[in-house]
């Protein structure tokens, strides 16, 4: 058995060794996972729910005028039913106006192939990125209704939409 003069430095040494090893591991090798969504520069750009509804109204107006839906969302801008800024996250415009022209891609996706006769709950318009502080995605369904969807709900709705579109596409065997 060890006497007290041996036990004390041995115990102290074990504690120091453990502490140093675990501190290096958790501090450097394995940073602690984020416990909550912290707004960062990587936070996604997406249009707001209000913008989604404005785009949906413009699509309806376009459809009533032309008896068909627009082939792309830019057609709504060309028809002066919508301002171009409505297709982009307002923070993108506020934060980086000089680079805005280099990023013409909309911050929302649109399914131009959907027709009125398709199921009403298919996705006509949606965001794919969560905005800062939001937990649900924005979507407009084929009947023009605005909805917020959880991640799982959006994935299910998108799969249903693509399945509906895909069944009308003649398939060719891939090599």
């Amino acid at each position, binding site marked *: 058995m060890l006497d007290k*003069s*041996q036990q004390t*430095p*041995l115990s*102290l*040494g*074990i*504690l*120091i*060794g*453990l502490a*140093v*090893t675990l501190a290096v*591991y958790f501090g450097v090798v*394995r*940073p602690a*996972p*984020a416990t909550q*969504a*912290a*707004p*960062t520069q*990587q*936070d*996604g*750009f*997406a249009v707001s729910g209000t913008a989604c509804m404005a785009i949906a109204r413009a699509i309806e107006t376009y459809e009533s005028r032309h008896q068909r839906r627009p*082939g792309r969302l830019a057609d709504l801008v060309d028809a002066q039913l919508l301002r171009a800024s409505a297709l982009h996250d307002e923070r993108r415009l506020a934060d980086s106006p000089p680079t805005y022209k280099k*990023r013409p*891609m*909309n*911050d929302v*996706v649109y*399914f131009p*192939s959907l027709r009125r006769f398709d199921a009403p709950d298919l996705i006509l318009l949606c*965001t*794919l*990125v*969560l905005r*800062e502080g939001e937990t649900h995605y924005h979507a407009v369904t084929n009947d023009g209704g605005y909805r917020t969807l*959880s*991640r*799982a*709900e*959006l*994935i*299910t*709705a998108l*799969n249903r939409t*693509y*399945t509906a*579109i*895909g*069944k*009308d*596409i*003649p398939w*060719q*065997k*891939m090599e």
Partner: protein
Amino acid sequence: MTIHNRTPSRGTSLAPTLAWLGGGIAVGILAGLAFIFFAADHVLPRPRGGDSVAGCSEHLADLANEVWRGYNQGHRADSLDDLRVRGTAMDLFRCPAAGNEHGHASAGGLATDYVYAPGIGEGDAIEPPLLFELPSNHGQTLFHVMPRDLTQPTEVRDSSQIHGHVQHLNDYLTAQRERGLAEKMREGR
């Protein structure tokens, strides 16, 4: 007068003390390493970072291979549910690295972390994604798409490009569907 001089005795006891301390540190380091290698992966929660999402990329490729295998056998999967019916293992539909972040499927839908776009076939452009996953959560907008030639899943981090990839797919499918609907009308169906 008595002079107390304890220096010689302290000098002789310091060396073994340091030796025990050093030995203890070595044992502590070994114990810490043992914990890291044998316990950390099982006891501690998985980190939600790049490594975690990279796991989804490999998984996406596995699922895409299942789709591809069906194509080569002359069966196009019209939906991911078709793959399930044909016997694809259920664990291929969920990304194991995503943890609980992706939640559960809504009622009536297959529990999956991926979106499948049927209708892309031979002769089609390579860029429209055959399969993709939604970007991860706030502060981590990594997005994987699998092109139809099943090379490697492409990583996209810029959110405008994420929307762009899917919009490109939608525009592409629009033209394909128009063609399909026109054919059906010609055939009187």
